[in-house]
């Protein structure tokens, strides 16, 4: 886990979001909100979290992560927990 960079996390997470939203990664903005801007319901947002945590093999606090509303908030959360 030592080699993970913020750039890598960003690129991986945006790929996942793009696939679930049916968009290209470069069409996504940091401040996109999952429901209002991407059309995600709460379950789809959870699926995105599920996929990224599987990729990095870590278990986030679902309680905390369920409160995050935008792409950048999740990225910050991931950076905080993945890069030590």
């Amino acid at each position, binding site marked *: 886990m030592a080699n993970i960079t913020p750039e890598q996390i960003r690129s991986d997470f945006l790929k996942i979001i793009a696939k679930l939203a049916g968009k290209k990664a470069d069409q996504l903005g940091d401040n996109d909100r999952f429901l209002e801007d991407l059309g995600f319901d709460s379950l789809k*947002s959870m*699926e995105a979290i*599920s996929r990224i945590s599987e990729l990095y093999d870590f278990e986030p606090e*679902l309680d905390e992560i369920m*409160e*995050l509303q935008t792409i950048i908030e999740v990225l910050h959360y991931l950076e905080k927990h993945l890069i030590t």
Partner: protein
Amino acid sequence: MNIAVDSKKIAYQKNSERYELRYETLIEALEKRAVAKPEFLIFMDLKNKESRVSAKDILTHGKAVAQYLIGRGLKQDDKVVVMLPTGAHFAYIYFGILLAGGVPVPVSQPAGTSNLGKYLDNLKHIIHDCEARYFITYEKIKVIAASLMNISDLVSGFLFDDEIFANPVPVENHKPLPVVKPDDLALIQYTSGTTGKPKGVMLSHRNLLHNIHGIGVASEMTPDDVGISWLPMYHDMGLIGGFLSTLYWHISMVLMAPEAFIFKPVWWLENISKYRVTMGVAPNFGYHYCVTRIDDASSHRLDLSAWRLALNGAEPIDRNTLTKFLEKFGPRGLRDDIFLPVYGMAENSLAATFPSLKNTTVVRRFNREKIETEDIAVDSNSENSKEYIDLVSVGYPLVGQEVRIANENGETLHEREIGEILVKSPSLMSGYYENPEATREALKNGWLHTGDMGFILDGLLFISGRKKEMIIKRGKNIYPYDIERIASTVAGVRLGCCAAFDVHNENEGTEDLVLVCETCIKENDDLDRLKRDIHAEVLAKLGIAPDDIMLVPKGTIPKTTSGKVQRYMCKRIYLEGELILSQGKNLLVIVKTFLMSHFHLFRRRMRQ
């Protein structure tokens, strides 16, 4: 290839088996259970760690909640809106309200990601509509949705669950609890609409107990069964199917939060393996999600051999999903006859029909054209998927229930003839709360008009279509008209020239929402912008995003002579168009599509 329609049997089924309800009220069911078999619920938290809650716990804490509410001025028949996540507090508070003589009105929670504006509008409507005096929620909601605190102005008591449990009423101040009768309301369940305001389905103890009894008989529940559900507890399937029916039948029940299942679907199967679960319930997408999201490495130690019934409801059932699920988990000891496709609706408490356990999954192949255009179910042995449609039967009525198929005048049709599905049973609601108009439309001469289309064949019920073109997406009901109306208001879209419909998405195992709109715009950049505008507008107004938006030139969308949009025709054109993209070189299809989508132009030319 066709077998003529020979049946002159009337499309009517009644289950006249004798039955006797074990209890008169849910409270009696809880009291008896607390003595006879206190072990009951196993809650799994967001890390999949268990905590156990007995029927005795529910009774004890329920009584404490009741005393607290009475102390806060709750009177008999007062409505209490409850917004809590899956957990012990939900169970305590649901029964606490009943014990105090109040009526629980459970509602969904907003997730951190939900469209708060629309959520709040709905919630305010529900609170006004049911004349709620109390609103019970959890403190964390302040973080998730601070604006929700405004709700406190609408009710006389805005309560957090923790404050109820932290401030028990001293014993010397306890009041006698009221006597609750079988015909008292035990639940008002609000049905979701897209823009149509939610309506409150009124259900009594007797209604719920009748339905619960029927579910148990049809699935041959015994106290040795162990159930599991990750459906939300505020929703009929999770509340009545998951929680109340297992209380009644003395079954142990494993309850997970929906988020936990989505986060790690393998937890669901791990729990089934660990607790030797015999009965599980989920909508179609749950099974599909397991197929796509669980890898073999994480599931190889599972033992699913105790699982005898997998109830499948709320969404159209996809045979492919069932097959893939069985293929994937067969090696884990999964039996191949566990799927039970069931049918029901909130207005009938929950369940209306179940298949026989001797033959759980009955699939029949019918001629697609005849079903879609002539409203008749004719057998087919075609191997061409465009010519046939495989339908999975949802079985027979539960005890004391009747089902018939009727035409628009309410007259009963014959077997194989497609009409509206009507249900009559002691589980039926007494009506929608304070809404006589909607009640009159739904209940006629004691029959519930479900709005679902289907037919009966050899006594088995088949669903052939949705509620009059209604689209169901992840359990949400969407009316095409609502979407079209909103899309029409976007600048650049031709007024009244939109068509919304669903398209089955094989990869997701669910339905995609597709919107086709006419426009006079031709520039590519402008078209892209228009698509984004439509997307944003529909999302803002309905909280649902179209999965695909297709812009077409003026006059493309087929209409009837009276100017009504022909959604079905439009869907066909759309699907043929899709085919071009996937097959690329199939010239014939391209020509055919072009002809179909520009048929009106040719017709006009020919007239000239």
